[in-house]
């Protein structure tokens, strides 16, 4: 169904980060918002994406924000970097979704939902680190990778799952000895994302707890946040809810804090 060659082929076809993006990230890395905004303006698609993203209701701005310098100024360095990484992820997303019933808008909403709540979590945990804030951007890559690898095999996947409750991550692991999150890590490497981002994403799979206590803790929060988000009806309708297995035991010790933070009653 899926072979190692197909995965290698997929990874090989991932384009390198465009020049304007690299520059934007470089300036954001050194904290220079003006230079970063100037670099971002060079990439029209990025500018448009940033406008669409920050004007979503979940960001809660009263008036429309349209200028990139203004957007970066409001978001600050960390959240601007996170937004740029989110944009990079959209470069990978397909123009038409087949396996999942997603649309471009719904995918952007998913990114926004995850990003805003991730920041809420980091505030709660008193963590101020722009790399950690950006790590959430890589999480939807697991969905993009699933779509890319399994879209032609939708009927087979449905048939397989009608006789055996197996998630896409396990199918991939059993067939190719490599899972969705390993592929996400390779994407992060290719795009020169900080190593910590990949580590948190691997832990967030729920299958590979990290030995690093801090990374593991963040992995738990991210895993729970993913399923909290994917339990929303719009994502259930998009058939995202069970693409990987929810590891309830992994997150049980942080659940009370999570439910308090998200005001779940």
């Amino acid at each position, binding site marked *: 169904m899926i072979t190692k060659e197909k995965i290698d082929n997929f990874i090989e076809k991932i384009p390198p980060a465009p020049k304007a993006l690299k520059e934007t990230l470089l300036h954001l890395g050194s904290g220079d918002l003006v230079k970063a905004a100037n670099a971002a303006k060079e990439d029209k698609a990025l500018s448009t994406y940033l406008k669409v993203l920050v004007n979503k209701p979940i960001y809660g701005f009263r008036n429309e924000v349209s200028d990139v310098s203004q957007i970066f100024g409001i978001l600050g360095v960390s959240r601007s970097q996170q937004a740029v990484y989110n944009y990079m992820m959209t470069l990978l997303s397909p123009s038409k979704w087949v396996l999942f019933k997603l649309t471009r808008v719904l995918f952007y909403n998913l990114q926004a939902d995850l990003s805003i709540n991730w920041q809420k979590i980091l505030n709660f945990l008193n963590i101020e680190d722009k790399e950690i804030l950006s790590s959430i951007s890589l999480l939807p890559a697991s969905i993009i990778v699933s779509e890319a690898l399994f879209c032609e095999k939708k009927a*087979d996947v449905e048939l397989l799952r*009608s006789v055996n409750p197996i998630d896409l991550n396990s199918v991939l692991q059993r067939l190719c000895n490599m899972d969705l999150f390993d592929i996400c890590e390779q994407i992060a490497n290719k795009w020169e994302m900080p190593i910590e981002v990949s580590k948190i994403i691997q832990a967030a799979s729920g299958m590979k707890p990290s030995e690093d206590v801090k990374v593991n803790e963040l992995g738990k929060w991210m895993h729970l946040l993913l399923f909290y988000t994917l339990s*929303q009806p719009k994502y259930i309708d998009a058939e995202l809810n069970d693409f990987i297995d929810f590891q*309830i035991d992994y*997150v049980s010790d942080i659940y009370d804090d999570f*439910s308090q933070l998200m005001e779940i009653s």
Partner: protein
Amino acid sequence: MRAVIKNGIGVFSPQGFLDGASGIAILSIEDIEATTAQNADMILVSLKRVIFFNRNGLDAFVKMFHKVRTANHTTVGFCDLDTKKYDAITNFYKNDLSFSLFRTQEIATLFATSYKNQNKNVLLYSDDKSQRSAMAIELHDNGHNPIIAQSESEFNKKAAVQDAYDIIITETYLGQMGQKVATRVTGNAIIYTVNSFLDAEIGNTFNIEYHNNSLNVGFRLFIFDTYKVVSMNIHALNFFSKLSTAGAEYNATICFVGMSFDKTPKAFKETLEDSGIIFFDQMDDILQNKELLKELGASSAANIKNKRLLNKTTVTELPNFIDATVATIEMMTNSSAIKDAVQINNIVIDEIEGKIASSIGYYGDLDGMIILVFPLNIAKKACELLIGEATEDTELVLDTLAELVNIVGGKLKTLLGDEDISVDITLPRTYPDVTSLLEIVQDKKGVQVDLSFNDDKFLFFLTR
């Protein structure tokens, strides 16, 4: 979301957070209709991967429970519950708990009519006395040894003894249990479960088409679990006599297990025996007696009156049959198939050793049977994806092979459906060796396609 059905038990596994909105999104009207149509013996909703739920979230499933039970008399309930979840559900549905609650899926299967894990020593406790009795009766009927703890302290004391019991049941509640003619396969015997009063209605509830196709696929032993039958009238007697006589054409045997004649005329037993039905007191008398099971369940093509020939429609659809099979095995093994030879003849298997086989029947607009003969190593490889690891356990491979052949059947159904040909599929039958397969198909003409997967020979045979 659809239920995964295995051994007649359908399980839904929602995950994450379950509230009113997500409950409705998870379970659409089509899903409920599909669940009803699947006609499983038991429908469970596992809450193992649900971290939060409220009453509105569960309501979507409870509505489905009512619909499925009304339509099919299926046993329905939630499983994989810890104390917190169990307490929450009993609290939500205080006066309206018409479905069952099982602490684990394993406990639920004890109450299903599955004899695979029979004869378990079960310690059980519930603070509700009538529940304790109801559970004990159900467990006993299903061939287990229930030990009831009368108080919590007695339960704690008994439960503390290590390895004394196979399974310990607490926090389990039996709602209305299902009452239907249930079907399942154990050791190539088909077991039907019948309940209460058997009258003319059995002619409507018993799926005769399914039974006939099972005969055609090669099942030869049909066991009626009649532990819960109170009495039988003359109409039911006629029905079973006819069923037995009709099965004799195939050398099939019908057995009644656990039938009591307290409220049924003794003369009925003689009539049933005259028509060839064999009586046993305990299910173990057959299922644990491997020799007898082998003898009664052995395939035999003898005396099949109507030998059916391949027809034009079947041959026209041959590419679909081959595609369904090849695509499935390619999918499961990540290898590609090469077609070596096609011929219409009796089945020819060059080397008998080291091969296992499986067959699945289909009926509807078209009917017939697909037979697949695997070298053991291909079968193991094909099953690896479903099992998750390499295994040497042939029984496990045979079980998984049945799942795989189910996928072939499902794929075939879809491919034929695309051409407006509607078929249903029977349960798959597996053969641990080729000899037992040959007994049933050696006289049948069909299309044989020899395929190779990475130089391993694999055989596909289509017959009627």
